[in-house]
């Protein structure tokens, strides 16, 4: 057992070299960490750049201003200013007459090409203006109309003048007319009043996200009012009342597993139960909200439980000590202190629900829906679905609109996360 000690100098050398080695390892690890963050950040920057580069122009579009003679008889044949009468009126004809006055087309063929310039939505615009202010009837006033998507693409330079005529979506005549309009200072480029207030449309120049946005809000409201009380109640029961036995354990394991189930599965469940068994109609936000509520429940339960168990036991003990019942302890002390954590979890869950399309596919909310929903029982779609559909349409102007809608969705997601952070900072207490 006689082990000779190493001499001091040798020991020092060994230690020194190993220290150097360890420090080098440290540095390398730091370098790896930094480079992964750098890579992740550069992906993010690239993503944002490509979205914003395409999306910002999507918020703007070209308009043409025309002096339209609002002839009462032709716009409102019945004379009662009803929707129906205005729909039957000849708004389009009046707009085209105003256009012909500026560009002076010769013959039927030229007139036919000139028709392509103004968006097909022009008559709807006039009808809306008249409903707002019937006194404009009978006057000649300047009105701005969106130009057709092909003309818009031409003015943006996506359709080039020097491509042979046969390969262009618009012919030389139309380009000639557009040149006249530009020369007369009739064409303006301004913030689109359709992107935020228009609903789904196959004409890209008038397509907007309003319908989808309202659909998203309605769906999320349903989702919140179902999942928050259910989730919090479940969490409170499991943390405060549930006996520690096999059944509770099984329930807990299942809740944790549910959080990892692919979201489309919840859509199948919704299809089978809500539509199949209860016979509810397809495509409505009520079902969408219920499906998303089931999907977000595990997230809310898990985060609420974490928030409740994070309340220091000393507070509970103190409450019990002065003779409070279990219910009183929970209601007066534990839940108020756990609320910030519960809300954070809920908002994060909601933000995830806002971006979901897969579970909605099964219940018919991935659809082309023009009418703006007024209640949770009218067909609606949601923002991510709108983005998905726009990305697939062939018309070129939809490329920019797709990115614009993505920006809007991102703004909402960031807003929701900011609220979560704000609430946490504001309400959270530290011990």
């Amino acid at each position, binding site marked *: 057992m006689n082990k000779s000690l190493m001499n001091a100098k040798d020991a020092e050398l060994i230690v020194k070299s190993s220290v150097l080695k360890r420090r080098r390892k440290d540095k390398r690890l730091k370098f790896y960490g930094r480079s992964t963050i750098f890579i992740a950040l550069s992906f993010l920057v690239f993503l944002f750049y490509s979205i914003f580069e395409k999306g910002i122009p999507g918020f703007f579009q070209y308009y043409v201003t025309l002096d339209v003679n609002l002839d009462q008889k032709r716009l409102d044949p019945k004379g009662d200013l009803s929707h*129906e009468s205005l729909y039957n009126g000849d708004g389009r004809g009046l707009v085209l007459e105003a256009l012909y006055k500026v560009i002076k087309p010769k013959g039927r063929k030229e007139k036919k090409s000139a028709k392509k310039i103004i968006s097909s939505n022009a008559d709807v615009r006039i009808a809306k203006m008249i409903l707002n202010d019937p006194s404009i009837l009978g006057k000649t006033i300047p009105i701005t109309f969106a130009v057709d998507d092909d003309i818009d693409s031409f003015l943006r330079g996506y359709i080039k003048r020097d491509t042979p005529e046969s390969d262009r979506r618009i012919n030389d005549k139309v380009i000639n007319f557009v040149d006249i309009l530009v020369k007369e200072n009739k064409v303006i480029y301004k913030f689109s009043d359709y992107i935020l207030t228009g609903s789904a449309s196959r004409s890209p120049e008038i397509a907007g996200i309003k319908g989808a946005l309202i659909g998203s809000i309605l769906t999320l409201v349903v989702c919140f009012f179902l999942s928050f009380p259910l989730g919090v109640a479940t969490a409170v029961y499991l943390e405060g009342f549930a006996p520690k036995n096999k059944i509770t354990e099984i329930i807990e394991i299942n809740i944790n597993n549910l959080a990892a189930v692919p979201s489309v599965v919840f859509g199948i469940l919704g299809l089978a139960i809500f539509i199949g068994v209860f016979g509810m109609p397809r495509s409505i936000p009520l079902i969408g909200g219920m499906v998303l509520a089931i999907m977000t429940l595990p997230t809310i339960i898990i985060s609420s439980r974490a928030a409740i168990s994070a309340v220091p036991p000393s507070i509970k003990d103190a409450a019990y000590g002065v003779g409070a019942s279990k219910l009183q302890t929970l209601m007066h002390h534990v839940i108020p202190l756990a609320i910030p954590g519960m809300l954070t979890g809920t908002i994060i869950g909601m933000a995830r629900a806002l971006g979901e399309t897969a579970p909605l596919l099964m219940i018919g909310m*991935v659809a082309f829906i023009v009418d703006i929903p007024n209640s949770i029982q009218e067909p609606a779609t949601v923002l991510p679905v709108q983005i998905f*559909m726009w990305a697939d349409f062939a018309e070129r102007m939809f490329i920019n609109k797709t990115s614009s809608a993505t920006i809007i969705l991102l703004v909402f997601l960031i807003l929701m996360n900011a609220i979560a952070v704000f609430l946490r900072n504001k309400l959270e207490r530290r011990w």
Partner: protein
Amino acid sequence: MYKNLFAFTFLTILMNVSLAHSRDYISIAGSSTVLPFATIIAETFGKDPTVKTPVVESGGSSVGKKGVCEGIGTKYIDIGNASSRMKTKELAFCNKNKVKLTEIKVGYDGIVVANSKKGTLLEISKADLGKALTAKIPVNGKWVDNPYKKWSDINPSLPNLPIRVYGPPTTSGTRASYAEMVNQKGYCAKDKVAKAASKARGDKKGKKCRAMRTDGAFIEAGEQDNLIVQKLQEDPKAYGIFGFSYLDQNSDTLQGAVISKTAPTFENIAGNNYSVSRALYFYVKHAHIGVVPNIDKYMEKWVQNWDGDGILADAGMIPMPKAERAKYAKAMKDLPVLTADMLKK
């Protein structure tokens, strides 16, 4: 206590919805190729303030044909869109559920093989095109994995470029139609060698040829045709398979391959000269006409817009010849019940 109350209100809401419900808008689902055209009609139709705009869902031809056959009642769709015709098997599912349908053909869609204008225009026979992308081809009487690496390996007159074609995935109706028209009918049922070899393996019609190559020559690019268009614009050496409307919208940057001496132009497809085209259909359920309001008016909107000058042609749909248009406009009024015999024709 409040949990009970909650469950009670929840159930009440559910019951109210299902009881009070009668749908006042038309519900449509199906083919993503028909979707752009169906949505245009739906939107035009919905401009009338007295009607509600129909809801058009996507999902693919099989969803359209199956969904419309699932049953009678407002929780099922009224109209199913499809870019391939109903099969007798699918009709049997309908009959089982006592659903009576009328088949309406609305127009045609060409499938194009296109590439960037900066690249070489492909002028190819249908058989050679089939040879390029069919998974297994006969060599000396044996079926082997497709050996062709370059277009010029198939036929010296073709470009000296590697075969690289982007196309839709198996779930797509476009892919199914392409495989049937080019691989099967254009190649295995036409090409002498392939025909004999197909017969030898007991596959007279060449149905086994429908499989596309999986060795990287044919690349699945997802359901989004816009994605293929973007890839082609960036890579002039690649080719892509998609619907005619996407070529039409991008005619300044893309060119469609000339297949069997016919270029994929609007006139050629409409005149039935371009051979890779298929018909678009919708199937309307009899029991819902009159129950869900305005289905007849919706069909009328198709008739008003499906000619050569209409908004549908402008969006890239190829109109039917006049006689056929008249035939299906009449069918919308008479509503002949679709039978298995009609499908065999």
